[in-house]
């Protein structure tokens, strides 16, 4: 048995044993957020610069993930080597997913909502993207970024909640939207449930009548030079706490302040756009 893993994560089926370490790793329960790193990328030592300082038994760990580990060594080191191999793969993964091809692979997973969906009701099940709070391993577990509300959530499942955030890094989701601006989710509540459809109309002042710019609807890749995101926040719906239909003074005041901050940002961005159309 090539991989006698201490953790119970090794629930890959028997057929995986005949396959590569990477395919075994990817099919293990809890590793659903990871994508496959191209072998070429791993074999190019330039891409691994500095990782030898991060990973103990670096060369054996590398041999293990590239399926070239000497059988004898494997028996001695087995337990700890598996941990090091996961660490090494995770750190390589963090570098891979910010390359053009890595972004593409993660994009496919994003489109399948492999990372789950935003728990915020008004985000209407927007698919999430994994992100780290730090790029240093062993500090923070992975979090999920929602491109619609631009906020971070904890994974629902504890087996995802214990994955190291450094295996995804702080940059990935933001680079994805920088490279593919047309993938930016709409802030529009149209796609959300219509239960409180009236809500957007009861904001009750002229700010709501501000002309809204068009947002890209279709998910097309590349391009996006023509789009404007200056005033997209106007389309965002928000929850308004009420007691017997009446707003609560202190919360309403905070929400007015927040919306004034929003309006100020929009004015700033629109002024900027007029200067540099």
């Amino acid at each position: 048995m090539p991989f006698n893993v201490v953790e119970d994560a090794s629930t890959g089926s028997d057929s995986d044993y005949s396959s590569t370490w990477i395919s075994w790793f990817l099919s293990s329960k809890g590793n659903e957020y990871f994508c496959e790193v191209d072998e070429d990328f791993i074999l190019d030592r330039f891409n691994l610069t500095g990782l030898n300082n991060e990973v103990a038994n670096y060369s054996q760990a590398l041999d293990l993930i590239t399926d070239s580990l000497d059988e004898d060594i494997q028996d001695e080191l087995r337990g700890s080597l598996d941990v090091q191999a996961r660490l090494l793969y995770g750190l390589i993964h963090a570098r891979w997913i910010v390359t053009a091809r890595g972004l593409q692979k993660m994009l496919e997973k994003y489109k399948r909502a492999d990372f789950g969906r935003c728990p915020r009701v008004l985000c209407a099940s927007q698919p999430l993207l994994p992100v780290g709070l730090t790029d240093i391993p062993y500090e923070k577990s992975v979090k999920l970024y929602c491109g619609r509300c631009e906020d971070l959530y904890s994974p629902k499942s504890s087996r995802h909640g214990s994955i190291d955030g450094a295996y995804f890094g702080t940059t990935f989701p933001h680079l994805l939207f920088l490279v593919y601006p047309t993938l930016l989710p709409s802030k529009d509540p149209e796609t959300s449930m219509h239960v409180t459809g009236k809500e957007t109309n009861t904001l009750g002042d002229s700010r709501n009548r501000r002309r809204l710019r068009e947002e890209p609807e279709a998910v097309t890749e590349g391009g996006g030079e023509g789009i404007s995101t200056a005033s997209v926040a106007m389309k965002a719906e928000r929850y308004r706490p009420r007691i017997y239909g009446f707003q609560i003074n202190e919360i309403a005041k905070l929400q007015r302040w927040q919306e004034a901050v929003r309006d100020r940002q929009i004015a700033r961005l629109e002024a900027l756009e007029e200067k540099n159309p």
Partner: protein
Amino acid sequence: MSSRQASVSDPRPPEDEEHIDGAGEGDEVMEEVEMQEEGYTSSTPTSTLTWISWFCSLPGHEYFCEVTEDFIEDDFNLTGLNTMVPFWKEAMEMVLDVEPEDEDTSKIPDVSIVESSAEMLYGLVHQRYILTRAGLQAMVSQVSFSTTSSVPFHIHVHFFYLDGTSANPLNFPSQLLFYQQAEKYESGVFGSCPRVYCVGCNVVPCGRVDIPGNDTVKLYCPNCNDIYVPPSSRFQGVDGAFFGTTFPHLFFQTYREWAPAPFWKALTTGGSPLSPRSPGTQPAPRQPTFVNPNQHGGQKRAAGYVYVPRIYGFKVSERAKSGPRMQWVRLRPESPEELDMVDWRGRWINEEDEYDDDEEEEEEDRQMEDFDPVGFV
């Protein structure tokens, strides 16, 4: 829904454990309520279980509290409900465990119809009950308002048994003990906010509409003032109207010590609400007593960090098309006075002073904060 009759010989309510852990992706929940088998076996025998206790013990019904029989028996509390519930009398008898007065059951086609009427009746009464003093108090007993916000929240699992007693505390690290107070604050049935920077703030159930049949139950977080889909699919069959739109807000108005204040300042000097570049690993500094000068407002220190996206360590500029557009939703002013800089129509009272905070924000953000929202195993 299973019939209660099926469980009479069985000490455990029907269809329990498989809903708890094994439902696969999405059902293993960060703040999931854990119900242990022992909890059922050690609880009161089913033969003495009332319909209400049974109903509240069903999987997915963990958010309900038990409405007292006096409340249901007082006709005033039921005003208007009889038009919304078919087989009103039979449903009422079922909910109150009253034997039917006559044997004329021929007009009732099926006990399952009465059962769904009983559920509707109970749900609608529940919506009203939890807005009363006694009902709010009953819901308090289900809420965990832990003051140890530094506890990493993925290990902050609440255990409780359906009879309301806590799980054996010896199973847990001592700092995570439910502080067993008389009111059982720590049972934590509703879970906590999934938003990372709410740092495990406890949530309460709510509906988006008060009319039944429109939407399922949601969870309201008093820190971000937002609503979330419950993490487990077993709540997808629970009507939000049975909790209503008012409950969470009346709850936090009543218990202001758990309502986060609308302003926030980082404890370290020169703090910014925008999240730190590299969250520190030191323990949180000792927190001085928090005071909100508005005595009618929230009296709890808010969790105020707002996420700042970064690419290779640099903040994503708002000038980028993909730059931040939604930080305002989570932002709090540093002081309560700043809230007064915006008038009732949502306009800045003195636009000039407030306009150029762009540079100021960049400046503040260079400060690094010691912030540890979530521990790491």
